[in-house]
């Protein structure tokens, strides 16, 4: 049984905007699952449906193996939720608000007080515990939201942009807190577009774009895919000669590069080991007589993989459209010819989350 499972989850707002497009998401118990995607990709909508705050237009969603609906308070009791830029009753203080959350959760007053004191300490709000929320900064609101999400010691924690609005210290602290929470048989789903956060805490990652899950897999696999053929090198000297010969790095020419000043980001589309590609780049440096300032295969690797997945998805979308148009023109409807393109991650390793 998955902790979270959606089947063809679709949400269309007022027949005008498709927020989720047949989303199939599966999250196992104990996972720290990072849901990554651009703004408007459908991350928050997914969460709101998971919590029963919104109804799906089509498809189904189950949490802890049971169908979620607005009336399933019993399921929500086991879930902690941090929304993006959370709002709270402004006249309350962190103490009175967390007491209120505790009473909603059915906690007795003494237990709620112990829990809220512990949590306010953990999110570094102890000194502001008696201040009105009205004067809180965005970062303080986020930290209070995290405390509120943890009040009931939930089995599933859903965090929507948990580090947004936080200063570097607050961000580091939040990441550490999530790491600490993840080691307790708890399932955590984090939506973010800060990819380094995902890399630091998540065991698994899913990429969502235009309401569809276009990739899901273990973090290690994502890193491997990113490293597969990406090298960054900074050189000085005869950079033009180096640039002119980049295409010779791969015999069949499946190499792309981007130049930013004296830095080249070279992407190999082939399937040979990365070490082989590194050697070829170093030989090219020797051949062209440039001075190498640094070379790396790890910089921005997750960003690279993320962008590559988005690019792949766009390409598949274009190919689908082209194939559909071709089938339509021929009057055929030969949809089976390009059915492989409809796979959410054609050509990539399969994962239970898809």
């Amino acid at each position, binding site marked *: 049984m998955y902790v979270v499972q959606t089947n063809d989850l679709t949400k269309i707002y007022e027949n005008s905007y498709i927020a989720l497009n047949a989303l199939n998401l599966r999250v196992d118990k104990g996972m720290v699952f990072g849901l990554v995607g651009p703004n408007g990709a459908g991350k928050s909508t997914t969460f*709101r449906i998971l*919590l029963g*705050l*919104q*109804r799906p237009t089509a498809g189904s969603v189950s949490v802890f193996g049971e169908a979620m609906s*607005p*009336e*399933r*308070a*019993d399921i*929500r*009791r086991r879930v902690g*939720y941090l*929304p993006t830029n*959370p*709002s*709270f*009753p402004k*006249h309350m203080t962190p103490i009175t*608000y967390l007491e*209120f*959350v505790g*009473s*909603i*959760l*059915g906690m007795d007053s003494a237990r709620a007080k112990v829990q809220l004191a512990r949590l306010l300490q953990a999110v570094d709000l102890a000194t502001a515990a008696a201040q009105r929320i009205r004067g809180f900064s965005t970062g303080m609101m986020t930290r209070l*939201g995290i405390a*509120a999400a943890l009040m*009931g010691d939930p089995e599933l924690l859903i965090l929507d942009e948990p580090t947004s609005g936080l200063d570097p210290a607050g961000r580091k602290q939040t990441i550490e807190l999530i790491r600490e929470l993840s080691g307790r048989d708890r399932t955590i789903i984090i939506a973010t577009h800060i990819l380094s956060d995902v890399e630091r805490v998540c065991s698994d990652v899913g990429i969502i774009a235009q309401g569809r899950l276009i990739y899901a897999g273990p973090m290690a696999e994502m890193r491997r895919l990113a490293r597969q053929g990406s090298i960054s090198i900074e050189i000085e000297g005869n950079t033009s000669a180096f640039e002119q010969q980049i295409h010779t790095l791969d015999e069949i020419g499946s190499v792309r590069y981007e130049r930013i000043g004296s830095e080249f980001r070279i992407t190999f589309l082939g399937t040979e080991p990365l070490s082989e590609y590194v050697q070829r780049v170093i030989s090219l440096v020797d051949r062209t007589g440039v001075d190498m300032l640094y070379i790396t295969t790890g910089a921005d690797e997750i960003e690279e993989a993320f962008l590559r997945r988005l690019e792949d998805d766009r390409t598949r979308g274009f190919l689908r459209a082209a194939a559909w148009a071709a089938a339509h023109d021929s009057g055929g409807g030969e949809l089976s010819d390009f059915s492989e393109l409809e796979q959410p991650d054609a050509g990539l390793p399969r994962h239970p989350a898809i």
Partner: protein
Amino acid sequence: MQAFLAILQYDLGQLTRSWVSRVWVPLLIVPALFLVVVARDETELASETMAVYIAAVLAPISALAVSILASGAISGESNIISDSILSRSVTRTEYVFAKIISRVGFTLVVYALVVTPFSYLVIRYAIADTSVGGVVAGLLMIAALLAFLAAFGIAMSVAMSSVLPAVLVVLLAVTLSGAVLQFLGLSWMSTTAVIDGLPETFRGDTPVWEQVRVVLVFSLLTVAALVSSVWLFRRKDL
């Protein structure tokens, strides 16, 4: 049940802290005390004094206050409902019922706390031309009107996403209802007609079936508005 009680307590706290409540209650009490003194000194009729108070003070001020308080019940919290409350272990039904009990209950409690001592004092110090049954019936009719106004405000609060349009719709509906009801041949249902007939009602001169008709119709309208609120809120995307 725990969640229902927590939200009820929270909302009653909101209402007692609200500036509307803080203005509403003194605005009802001060003229009431003034009218008691005038009625005693000028030997006014109790029925007329009570009717004047309701028509000139209680009805207009309470209509405005109840419209604002009820119309802000849910729309006034639209930014925190989902983030802070309904994403926790609360059902929609628990939430909306807590709001209904709180807002309608608060309206009726304030009304009762003001009119009960006022009626007692007026009957005692003015010329007592009222009957007990007539006073109870007259006050019940006004209570039914206020309860309906609160229920209608809550329904608008569920239907609309911000407070101001909801308040405006409620006030507009109250203002225009007299003309519409007259056009429909139902002028007895208008607040104006009910308030105009209060002196006779307090004296016990209004036929019982007319009193029962007003109380019954407005109670049914209140129930209809509340059922619609619950139905609509349970289906709403937050």
